[in-house]
């Protein structure tokens, strides 16, 4: 368990605020929640660090580029689908 996690176990206020962090990071928080969290992280270095790291993590995730379907995969998919369609219409080949 990291130093930070140990601290969270001990401090009920931190544990409660960390639990609402994801909502705040997703802009799904209430005004009161945001106010409470922001007030807390101004005085709690550990929670402030966690908040900004979580924020950075989400940015990194969202920046992940969508991969292209490889050509071979694309061709194989259509080959399989066309075969399946043919089987439905003509029955399995003998």
């Amino acid at each position, binding site marked *: 368990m990291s130093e930070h996690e140990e601290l969270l176990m001990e401090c009920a206020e931190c544990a409660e605020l960390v639990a609402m962090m994801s909502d705040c990071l997703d802009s799904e928080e209430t005004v009161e929640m945001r106010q409470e969290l922001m007030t807390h992280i101004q005085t709690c270095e550990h929670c402030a660090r966690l908040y900004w790291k979580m924020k950075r993590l989400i940015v990194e995730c969202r920046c992940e580029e969508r991969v292209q379907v490889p050509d*071979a995969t694309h061709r194989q998919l259509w080959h399989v*689908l066309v075969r*399946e369609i043919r089987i439905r219409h003509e029955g399995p080949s003998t």
Partner: protein
Amino acid sequence: MAKGKQLQVAPKALPVPDDELVRRAQADNEEAFEELVRRYERKVYNITYRMLGNPQDASEALQDTFLRAYRFIKRFQFKSKFYTWLYRIATNVSLTKLRKRKSPVVMSIDEPVGPSGDIAFEVPDEQLSPEKMYRQRETRRLLRKAVDELPEDYRTVVVLRDLEGLTNDEVSKVLNLSIPAVKSRLHRGRLALRSKLEKYL
């Protein structure tokens, strides 16, 4: 052009909505199903790729997903969006594949990664310094590795929510979970990722 004469531009045809394509596909219109495949092929591949962590398994899961969708499309009852139904199939197929693995696929962080075993899909921001570009690339590579190592409950939610950009509501429909359950798994998954990437964030 004569004064006052307006250039006539043919109105662009609106895409056929998913539900209409599904109705046609249910009536054995194969072109409609093919259009659905074209529409969602890349998205489904991204889900399977991020869930399974390698292009070979992702490709097989992509095929299985669309084969199942084709075989069972007549059972789709329009109680949800077509794509949430499709993503649910993709997620279930991926989870089944994950569980069948006797041991996890271990990929060195030094190995090239990417949909076809390269990193060509990463286009670095040319305005960054070489050091920053390297660091950015490293962070992304480690992020993918960290996602691969998450327990499947957390990984599924993180992939759909943070990597694929679905809303909590959509994730809850894909996974058939309550929104509080999605939020809880997402939060735990993020904490686990943050813990794995502590040094790089």
